[in-house]
């Protein structure tokens, strides 16, 4: 298994915890070291080499050691560590080592020792490691550049911390963009990502919405796709090449159609990464000025999109506490 030709193509790597490497064991995967200062990746341990005590000792002397494996080696790593095959890759990245209060880690899973959302301002923009399985600079950069705008996570010592998977969020965003672009031939842009509790205070109008349950071994929650009437009509008109001026129940099915296609695209992409998300069928609702808070009471994220058709929202509520 060889490293990518471009050693600084960090998108091909995953960070792992050194504690997962057993001293004296033969590693069935290549390990790399990321040298932050030089922005370089070194091939540290070859596949089939024993992880010796002196290697560990030398590693511990380094400042902020970052041990990487190739994405293609993740199945071998899971087998080596005994993790369930459905463990999402993001769970391998345990942010509790980097516990500075004002640092962003969007790490995943519902296992023990996970995982907190903190916010680190400027460092996020400068630190590409954080974006491997996480939200890109484009999605969080605006907030990250203003350290004072995001509150410190007071839940860092709370046992019921929000556990959010950055890979899931990223895949949901890209799937939404791809599906809307494919169906409606309209380019959709990510406008803002915020905590649901903050977003609920806004007056964003929701007239048509669709909800789908999310179940897997590690994630349980509800996803909602919410549209103002004008945005929905514009998208449906673009998708059908027809002109509708009113959202009747038989047309509101389109919200479920968008949700289903986005969900299926997201699900297939995530299942390819080992998530094992179950199939589901969306429910759709129609009204005026709908309040979705009671539908999705769990904490999570609101992802706001903008498009030539207008704005719309993706709501992700995640069950906490296991």
């Amino acid at each position: 298994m060889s490293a990518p030709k471009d050693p600084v193509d960090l998108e091909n790597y995953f960070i792992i915890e050194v504690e997962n490497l057993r001293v004296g064991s033969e590693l069935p995967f290549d390990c790399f070291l990321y040298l932050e200062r030089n922005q370089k990746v070194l091939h540290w341990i070859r596949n089939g080499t024993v992880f010796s005590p002196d290697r560990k000792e030398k590693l511990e002397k380094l400042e902020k050691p970052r041990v990487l494996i190739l994405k293609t080696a993740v199945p071998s790593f899971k087998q080596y560590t005994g993790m369930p095959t459905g463990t999402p890759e993001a769970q391998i990245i345990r942010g509790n080592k980097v516990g500075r209060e004002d640092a962003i880690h969007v790490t995943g899973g519902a296992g023990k020792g996970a995982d907190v959302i903190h916010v680190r301002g400027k460092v996020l923009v400068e630190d590409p490691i954080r974006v491997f399985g996480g939200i890109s600079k484009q999605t969080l950069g605006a907030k990250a550049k203003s350290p004072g705008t995001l509150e410190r996570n007071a839940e860092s010592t709370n046992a019921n911390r929000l556990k959010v998977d950055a890979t899931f969020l990223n895949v949901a965003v890209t799937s939404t963009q791809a599906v809307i672009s494919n169906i409606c031939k309209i380019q959709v842009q990510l406008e803002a990502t915020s905590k649901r509790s903050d977003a609920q205070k806004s007056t964003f109008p929701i007239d048509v919405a669709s909800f789908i349950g999310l179940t897997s071994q590690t994630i349980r929650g509800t996803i909602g796709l919410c549209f103002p009437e004008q945005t929905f009509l514009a998208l449906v008109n673009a998708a059908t090449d027809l002109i509708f001026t009113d959202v009747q129940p038989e047309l509101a099915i389109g919200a479920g159609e968008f949700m289903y296609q986005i969900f299926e695209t997201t699900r297939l992409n995530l299942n390819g990464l080992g998530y094992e998300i179950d199939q589901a069928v969306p429910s759709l609702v129609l009204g005026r000025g709908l309040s979705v808070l009671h539908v999705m009471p769990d904490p999570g994220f609101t992802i706001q999109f903008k498009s030539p058709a207008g704005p719309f929202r993706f709501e992700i509520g995640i069950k906490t506490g296991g």
Partner: protein
Amino acid sequence: MGAPIFPSCSYLVAVSSSADFELQIQAAGQRHQCQVFLCNSLETFDQAMSVIANPIGIVVDFTQSEPDLPGRLRVSLEKFFKSVPVLAFRHSSVSGYDYAKVVLLHKPVSLNDWLVPIDEYFASMVAKNLDLALRHSANEIFPRFFSALGSFSSIPVYQAADGFQINYSLSGGDLIGLGVSRVKVKELENMLSPEQRSKLMDTLKEATNQCLGLIIQQVAKIGQSLKLGLPTVFDLSKMPTVRSLRFFPSAQVADPRALISMQVGFIHLTRGAMLEFPKDFGSGDSGDIEFL
């Protein structure tokens, strides 16, 4: 302008040029929460069938048709949909429709002449013995939480509630299910103590959860493994129209005053095979149900 066809939605295709039939089949769609696509000509039918990959069924009204339409339609139906349940209304008997359930209507056609066969047609799509399984599960579980409710019995169609609707999704491979409880919250609260009222929503979710847990046990007996998702709660006063994208042929039960109704249905996403539940449920061994 008619609504477009949405590829992921499941449709009942109805063919007729009769206004009366159109009204009745649309009303039936509302009763059974099924999306109806109405075709008023053979050309429209052929166009719709080129897009609707897997119709739930086809209902055809031959009572108003032109003389040659039945023959032409029969060719289309035979060509594509021998595996889809077909219901045909006629004034007189005619041979050659072996794949269809034919209902002979007498002129003039009264309201019930349409309603009963259509409701029976929808009921025929429901997994065999699911109504028995649901009735058994509801009677095992709900009285433990609401002792004054009374026994649950089967009802032909879902009953709208003016309170809350709690949706649970069930999934296992290509088999997915939808469990829905509908609750008239205000009336139910009148039966409860103040302490019980404060916990009513949690109690309802738990009761629905346990009821569906028993259903899952029954499904396991026929070799299918299902997981239960998290509840999604809809306040029907704030969201008057709530429906599923796909049609789940469902069994429904309710208590005598219809304060709580439960609806459960299943579909197989890749094949039309119907579930058949066992008739023998044994005792309510809910001790090993996994709760959220």
